[in-house]
C-alpha cells in the first residue's frame, strides 16, 4: 500500500470513527436543549393516602411493560396495587387529584388505541368509575390535572393541545394549543418551546407550564380574564440562564409547589418554588445536578419535593429548607414517595415485583419495608 493510500485510509478511518461516535458527543455552544421531561413514574399525596405510579413487567417494545398504580392508605404502612381495571396500561398511566380522597387516573393509549380511557376513584382505589378522553394524553407525568372543588379536568395532549372538561369530565373542549400559547404575549416573553405540565391554581385557574428558551423566565402560564399570563417564580441570580423547564407543578390546599430545571448538560440546576394563595413565590437555593438527568419527580405534603437522578435523589422538605442528598438509592428505584414528617420511601419495580424502601430521616441507608408481587399478565397485550 502506498504512503498516500495509507494516509487517506487513516484520515478516512478517523472521519468514520468521528462520524460514528460523534452523535453522542455534546456540542458546546450549540442550541441548548433543555432537560428531558421526567418519566411517568411519580407519586402524590391526598388526605386519604399516598399514590404512586411505577412501571412493571418487561419490554415496552413487545408491549410487555405494564404501568401500575399503587396506594398506601393514610395511617397504614403497606402499599396496595390499585391499577384501574378494564384497560391496558402499556402506554403509561398518569394521575391527578382534585383534593380530598379523589384520584383520577388517565391511561396513555398504546398500539392501535388512539384515545385515553380515564378512571376515577373516591375510595382509595377500591372501586373505579370509567370515563373517556377522546384524545391522546401527552407522555409527561403532569398531563392530567383536576380542579379542587369544581371537578373540572385539564388534559395536556400529545399534540400539544390542552383540553378542559366540564365538571365531572363528561365534555371536553380545547383550551389552548402549544402554538397559540407560544404566539401570545406571555409565550413570546418566555420563548415557549414545549408544554409539559397541566395544573389548576388553588382558585381553579387553569395553568400550563413548559420550557422557555428566554433567559430567567419560568414557563408557568395562568389563564386569567381570558388571557394567558406568565405566573411563574422568578429565577435567583445564581441560576444559569436558558433554557428552563417546569418539571412539576401541583396544588395542595392553598399552596402551589413547582420544580424547575434550568441550564443544560453539566450546568443544569434544580429549583423548587412555593406560592401561597397565588401570592409571591419563595424559591429554594439551586441544586446543581452535575450532569445527571432527572428521572422522576415527586411532590409531597407541605411543599416537599423529591427528584430521582441517576441512582441518587435530592429532596427538599418545603419553603425555607435546603436541598438534601439522600443515600444512594436501592437498585431499580423509579420514584420517591414523600410522606408526612419528612419520611421518604424509595419505590422500585422490576418484572413482577414492587419493592418499597424507607429512609428514616437522618439514617445512613434504606430499609426494605415491603415486597409486593404484581400479577403481570405477560403477553396479554400482544
Amino acid at each position, binding site marked *: *500500500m502506498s504512503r498516500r*493510500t*495509507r494516509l487517506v*485510509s*487513516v484520515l*478516512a*478511518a478517523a472521519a*468514520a*470513527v468521528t462520524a*460514528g*461516535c460523534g452523535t*453522542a458527543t455534546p456540542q458546546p455552544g450549540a442550541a441548548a436543549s433543555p432537560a428531558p421531561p421526567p418519566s411517568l413514574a411519580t407519586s402524590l399525596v391526598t388526605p386519604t393516602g399516598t399514590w404512586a405510579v411505577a412501571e*412493571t413487567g418487561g419490554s415496552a*417494545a*413487545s*408491549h410487555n411493560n*405494564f*404501568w*401500575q398504580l399503587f396506594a398506601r392508605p393514610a395511617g397504614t404502612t403497606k402499599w396496595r*396495587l390499585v*391499577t384501574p*381495571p*378494564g*384497560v*391496558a*396500561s*402499556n*402506554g403509561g*398511566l398518569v394521575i391527578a387529584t382534585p383534593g380530598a380522597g379523589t384520584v383520577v387516573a388517565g*391511561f396513555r*393509549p*398504546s*398500539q*392501535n*388505541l*388512539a*384515545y385515553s*380511557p380515564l378512571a376515577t376513584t373516591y375510595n382509595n382505589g377500591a372501586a*373505579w368509575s*370509567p*370515563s*373517556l378522553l*377522546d384524545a391522546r394524553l401527552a407522555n409527561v407525568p403532569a398531563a392530567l390535572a383536576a380542579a379542587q372543588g369544581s371537578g373540572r379536568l385539564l388534559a395536556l395532549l400529545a399534540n400539544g393541545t390542552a383540553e378542559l372538561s366540564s365538571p365531572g369530565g363528561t365534555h371536553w373542549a380545547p383550551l389552548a394549543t402549544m402554538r397559540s400559547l407560544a404566539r401570545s404575549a406571555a409565550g413570546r416573553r418566555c420563548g415557549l418551546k414545549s408544554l409539559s405540565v397541566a395544573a389548576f391554581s388553588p382558585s381553579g385557574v387553569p395553568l400550563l407550564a413548559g420550557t422557555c428558551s428566554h433567559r430567567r423566565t419560568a414557563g408557568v402560564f395562568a389563564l386569567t380574564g381570558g388571557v394567558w399570563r406568565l405566573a411563574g417564580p422568578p429565577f435567583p441570580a445564581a441560576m444559569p440562564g436558558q433554557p428552563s423547564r417546569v418539571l412539576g407543578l401541583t396544588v395542595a390546599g392553598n399552596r402551589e409547589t413547582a420544580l424547575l430545571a434550568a441550564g443544560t448538560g453539566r450546568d443544569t440546576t434544580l429549583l423548587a418554588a412555593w406560592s401561597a394563595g397565588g401570592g409571591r413565590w419563595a424559591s429554594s437555593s439551586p441544586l446543581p445536578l452535575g450532569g445527571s438527568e432527572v428521572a422522576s419527580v415527586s411532590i409531597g405534603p407541605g411543599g416537599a419535593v423529591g427528584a430521582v437522578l441517576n441512582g441518587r435523589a435530592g429532596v427538599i422538605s418545603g419553603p425555607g429548607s435546603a436541598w438534601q442528598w439522600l443515600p444512594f438509592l436501592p*437498585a431499580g428505584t423509579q420514584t420517591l414517595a414523600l410522606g408526612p414528617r419528612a419520611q421518604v420511601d424509595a419505590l422500585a419495580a422490576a418484572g413482577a415485583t414492587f419493592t418499597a424502601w424507607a429512609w428514616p430521616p437522618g439514617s445512613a441507608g434504606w430499609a426494605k419495608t415491603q415486597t409486593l408481587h*404484581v*400479577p*403481570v*399478565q405477560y*403477553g*396479554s*397485550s*400482544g
Partner: protein
Amino acid sequence: MPGMNSGINVNAPAVVAAFKSALLHQAIIALLIFAVLGLAWITVRAWLPAAARTAEQAGPGGPPAAAVAEPAARQLLRVGFGLLWLFDGILQAQPKMAIGLPSQVIEPLAAASPKWVQHVVNWAGTTWSYHPMQAGASAVWIQIGIGVWLLAAAHGPLSRLAGLASVAWGLVVWVFGEAFGSIFAPGLTWLFGAPGAVLIYCFAGALIALPERAWHTARLGRLVLAGLGLFLAGMAVLQAWPGRGFWQGASRGTPGTLAGMTQTMAQTPQPHALSALLNAFTGFDEAHGFAVNLFAVAALAVTGGIFLTGRRRLIRPAVIAFTVLCLADWVLIEDLGFLGGLGTDPNSMLPFALLAFGGYLALTPAPSVADEPASATESASLEAAARGWQARFRPGYLRQSMATANFRSVAAVGAVGLIILGAAPMAAAQANPNADPILAQAIAGSTAQLNFPAKGFALTDQHGRTVTLASLRGKVVLLTFLDPVCTSDCPLIAQEFRAAGQLLGAASRGVELVAIVANPVYHQTADTQAFDRQEHLTQVPNWLYLTGTVPQLQQVWKEYGIAALILPAGSMIGHGDVAYVIDQNGHVRGELNTAPGPGTTATKSSFAVLLADAARQYLRPA
C-alpha cells in the same frame, strides 16, 4: 384473543402444509428446468458434433485451465459465498419460516432501531405476511438459485452476473430482513454481527462482479484488506467506547451487554453442549468483563492496523488469527447464528473470515491471460459481441452457444431459472391487495356448517337507539364482540369488518356489520362512539356497535360463548375473537375465529375476504 396473546401460530398446520406443498411443487418444476436444459444441451451437442468436439477439446470442465484459471481469491469468495447462499436458502425452507419470519425475525430485529427503520421494515414484513407462502418459497428458491449460480459459473459474464445478483438480493435482505444490520440501533458491535452478515455477502458479490482483469494485480487484495482494516479499527473504537456496558461483565448482579447477550443466546433451544459452552463463556465474561473487552478491542485494533499496512508478511498471521477470532466469536457469542429461534443465516463471522482470506489470497496476483488463445465459447461470445447484442438471440448463435457450453454453464442457466421460479409467483401475488385467505383459514380452523337459531338480544347502538336481533331479520348479520378500549386486536377486526363491507359493494345493503361491546368496565355509548371515530366507522351505514348494561351484556356474552375477563395489573379485557355469520332468517350459519396474526396486519384483509364470502353465501336475491 385480546389479552391472551392468541392469533395464528407459526406452526399452524394448514400453513405449514401449504408451505411444504408449495416448495414441493416448485422443487419438481426446478428439476424439470434442469432436466429440460440438460436434454437440450445433449441434443444440441449431438446435432452439432463439430462444435461439441471443440468444446470437449477445451477440457471436461470447459476451456483449458491454463487459459482462464480463476484467481484463487475469487474462487474462494465465489465458492464460499455460493455455499453460504445455498445454506441460507435451505434455512429459509424451515416450516415455521412462512409465518414466523415477519414476527419472529424481522420485527424484533427492527424493534430497537429508529422509527423510520421500523416503518421500512414493517412495510416489508406486512408485504411478506400478506402472501407468506409465495414470499417464503421465493426466498428459498432465490437464495438457492444464487448459491448454485455462484458455484456453477466460474468465468465470464455469467459468473460476474451471479456476483451482481448476490449484491442485489443481499441488499434486499440487509434492508428489509436485517433492518440495515441494526446499524441504526444502539449497542452496535462487531461481536454481535455488525454491520449485518448479508452486507458482507453484498461486498463479496461486488468483488465477484468485477472484471477478471481486476484480479491480476495485488491492488484489489490491498484495497479489500485496507477496507476491512478500516472497518475493524472503527469497530475497535466503538467497542472501547465507555458507557455501552461492554467493560462491565456484570453490575449489581445484572449481566453486562456481552454477558447479557450470550446469556440470552444460551437460553434458546440448541444442543446441550453448545448452551453449556455459552453459559461457561457468560460466567467467564461476568467475572472478567474488563479483560474480555480489552482483548476484543486490542484484537480488532491490531488486526485492523495490520490489514491497513498491506504488508503480506504481517497479514498472513493476522488473517489466521482473525479467522480464529471469528470462529471463537461465531461459537461463543453468535451461537453459530442459526441455532435457536428461527435462524436465517450463520451470521457474520464466517463471511468475515472468508473475506479476509479472500483479500489475503488476492495479494498474490493471478497470471494474466491476455496472450492465451480464446476458447471456442469465448470466441463465439466475442464474435457475437462484435455484431451487437441482437446477435446473441439469433437461433444460430444460441445453438452454437449450447453446443459449446460446458456443464457448469448449463447449471448456471438452470440457477437463473430457479431464481425466476421463486420470484415470479411472489411478483404475481403482489398484484393482489388482499392477503392470502389461508391465513384466516389457519386461524379460524375448519368452519363447520352450522344451522341453529341465533339467540336474540336487545341492546343500544352507538346513536342511543335500541336494536334487536329480530329487527335485523332479512339481512345477513356478521356479528363480532369488540372491546372499545382494546389496544391490539379489536381495531384490526373492526377494520376487517369495514373492508368486508367494501368488498361486498352493492350487496352490502343486505348485510349488517354488528359488534357488541366486550368490556364490562368501558361499555358506555361514549366509548363505542370514540371507537367508531377512531376506526372511521361513523360513515359506514350498515355498522352497528351495540352496548347495554353489564347484566345485559353478560347475558349476550354467555349465549354466544364469549368470556370477557377482567385481567389484573394493567391488562386489557381478555375476550374471544370470534365472528358469527347469521343468515337472513336469524340462523347462525358459521363461526369464524377472527384473531389477527401476531405482529402483522395481514389477516385484516384476509378475514375481510372470508367474511365477505360468508355473507355472500347466505344472501338471497331480493
